[in-house]
């Protein structure tokens, strides 16, 4: 009987079984950022333990980094304290830090794949739920808590129970203007924000096979929004081409050996899954969220749902709460809803492919009057590429604020925040209440090209119509 990638990677990293029945799992690579690691280092110091494998740990600051002015000291003294703690903890323990002056800083989930640190067949963890992103190269990557960060610092292992594996197959061909983000939002909508509880998602099918690596990173990034703690894609030629030549990827003869090893981790053709879901590509529209959970989404041609049409009392209550918070009326077409802010960036959609997709559409167009539009490359490396390719200038000419690398308006731990009940067309990952920094702020999740369409029209719009991409 064949095995899934999940089972193979799990088996290869198993140290043994703990007295409570959990598996002790070796962690190939851990990433750190400034928000969830300082407490772990404090706990380690209290125990008097050293960092066991500093060479397997990589850090970069991202959440609290301002994206407008990065001259130090930052205006926020608490951000200064957090950055100082990260620097001190990395220096004292011999951990590689991709700091602001390094030219390699950025959102941790962008930096890892971009530098080729994230490789197939690895177990990868970080104190951050969007660690699932790294599964796109064929690794088992999971978000963990701070006490678990301490466990990995001290032992390079974790106490874990294996997940079940659900294969989510997206089959067919995406219609023009439908992107990886729409695929992910659609999957979450179909399976529910809690649909993946207890599961790892293996994304597969012809749509995933033909998707570029940046798109795959977007899909895996959003696995956790469907409650799947990790999402992954089997490594293939696209994966290897993506990794080749990156700073931390194996070189020379080691490269060939690595590729052979990586291939062996892919799920066997006769692998047995705990569940299989098939999603037809042609049912996916450009998708927009209307509520306060990432599964509350509709196609751009849809209308805001009515709580009275809900299949059960719980859903009715959830919809009512969401509509009240979003100040939306049932039956309103989502298209045409005015927005105040547009945010293109985050570990979901702050990659080079995202900016490459939007730039040609923005050429010769302007952000609508009164709209605040932010374009925030997720990493310094992506920012450099965007400058070199003239992408940054196109965004600037269109009236976007072109910012420095960081998490920015995804999560409100830096100066980029919504004000009052502003509506934000956002390429980020969460539309939770208050997520973007104002306790009454409203988030509409969508793809980068849909966010660009909202920027130039000042309202939720169908990017295919605005940019004439139906051809």
């Amino acid at each position, binding site marked *: 009987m064949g095995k899934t990638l999940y089972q193979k990677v799990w088996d290869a990293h198993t*140290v*043994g079984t*703990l*007295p*409570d*029945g*959990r598996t*002790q799992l*070796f962690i*190939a690579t851990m990433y750190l950022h400034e928000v*969830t690691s300082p*407490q772990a280092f*404090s706990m380690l110091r209290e*125990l008097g333990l050293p960092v066991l494998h500093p*060479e397997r740990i990589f850090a970069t600051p991202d959440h*609290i980094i301002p994206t407008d002015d990065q001259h130090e000291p930052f205006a926020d003294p*608490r951000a200064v*304290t*957090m950055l100082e*703690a990260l620097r001190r903890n990395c220096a004292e323990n011999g951990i590689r830090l991709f700091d602001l002056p390094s030219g390699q800083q950025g959102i941790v989930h962008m930096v890892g794949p971009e530098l*080729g*640190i994230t490789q197939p067949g690895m177990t990868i963890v970080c*104190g951050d*739920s969007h660690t699932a992103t790294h599964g796109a190269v064929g690794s088992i990557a*999971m*978000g*963990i*808590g701070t*006490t*678990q960060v301490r*466990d990995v610092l*001290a*032992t*390079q292992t*974790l*106490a874990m*129970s294996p997940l079940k594996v659900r294969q989510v197959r997206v089959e067919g061909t995406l219609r023009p203007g439908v992107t990886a983000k729409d695929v992910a939002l659609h999957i979450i909508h179909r399976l529910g*924000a*809690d649909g993946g*509880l*207890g599961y790892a998602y293996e994304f597969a099918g012809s749509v995933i096979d033909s998707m570029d690596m940046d798109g795959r990173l977007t899909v895996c990034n959003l696995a956790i929004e469907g*409650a799947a*703690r990790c999402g992954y894609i089997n490594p293939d030629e696209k994966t290897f081409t993506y990794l080749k030549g990156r700073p*931390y990827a*194996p*070189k020379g003869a080691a490269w060939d050996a690595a590729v052979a090893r990586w291939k062996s981790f892919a799920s066997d053709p006769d692998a047995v899954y705990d569940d299989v879901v098939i999603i037809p590509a042609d049912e996916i529209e450009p998708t927009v969220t209307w509520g306060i*959970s990432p599964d509350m989404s509709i196609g751009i041609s849809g209308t805001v749902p009515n709580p009275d049409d809900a299949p059960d009392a*719980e859903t009715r*209550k*959830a919809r009512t709460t969401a509509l009240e918070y979003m100040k939306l009326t049932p039956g309103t077409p989502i298209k045409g809803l005015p927005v105040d802010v547009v945010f293109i960036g985050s570990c979901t959609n702050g990659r080079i492919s995202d900016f490459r997709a939007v730039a040609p559409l923005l050429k010769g167009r302007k952000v609508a009057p009164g709209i605040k539009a932010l374009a925030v490359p997720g990493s310094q490396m992506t920012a450099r590429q965007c400058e070199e390719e003239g992408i940054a200038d196109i965004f600037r000419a269109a009236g976007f604020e072109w910012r420095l690398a960081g998490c920015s308006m995804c*999560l*409100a*731990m830096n100066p980029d925040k919504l004000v009052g009940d502003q509506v934000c067309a956002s390429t980020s990952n*969460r539309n*939770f*209440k*208050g*997520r973007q*920094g104002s*306790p009454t702020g409203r988030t509409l999740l969508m793809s980068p090209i849909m966010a660009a369409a909202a920027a130039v029209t000042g309202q939720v719009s169908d990017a295919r119509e605005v940019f004439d991409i139906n051809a």
Partner: protein
Amino acid sequence: MPLNTIITITGKAVPVPGADMDTDRIIPSRFLKCITFDELAGTMFYDERFNTDGSTKHHPIDDPAHAGACIIFGGENFGCGSSREHAPQAIKRSGIQAIVAESFAEIFIGNSSGIGLPCVCAAHTDLEAAIELTRREPDTQWTVNLENLTLSCAKASYPITMQANFREALIRGRWDAVVELMNAPETVAKLAASLPAPSLS
């Protein structure tokens, strides 16, 4: 490191109902700008409880009738969203000793168990009944019993479930895993030597 066993939790309960109670609602990100967890007491569910001007939203947590509650009754997919351990830390440091909900997000349940905060599941109808009872009679003393897996009070008793290994870890006082993770250094060293680490060379 000797740890206390966690077998029963007894006290008043407070309802925090609703599906998909995400960690941004449990603790808004502005409270995450800290390098210790010490400052988190009292911050749980902050924006659920207070308006932007600081006035109360009359959340059950702030109802004097529920003062001193040590058990939360939640809904489906409790603790979804980010992996921030700040969420269970804020809950624990605000005096809560157990959470009963329909279901929990994976990362949240692991984070909570790792700091000795049990997360147990009850059926939808049982939780509804328990919430109804505790709303009507807020002084009801509930007991979450991890040994015989019940949520009970003088008037009612409901079955609860939890992942076997978390239950085992809590009732045996082994919920902080780090000691046991240090018991197999040779095997860990062998794996570290055989599994490639990313490097610049």
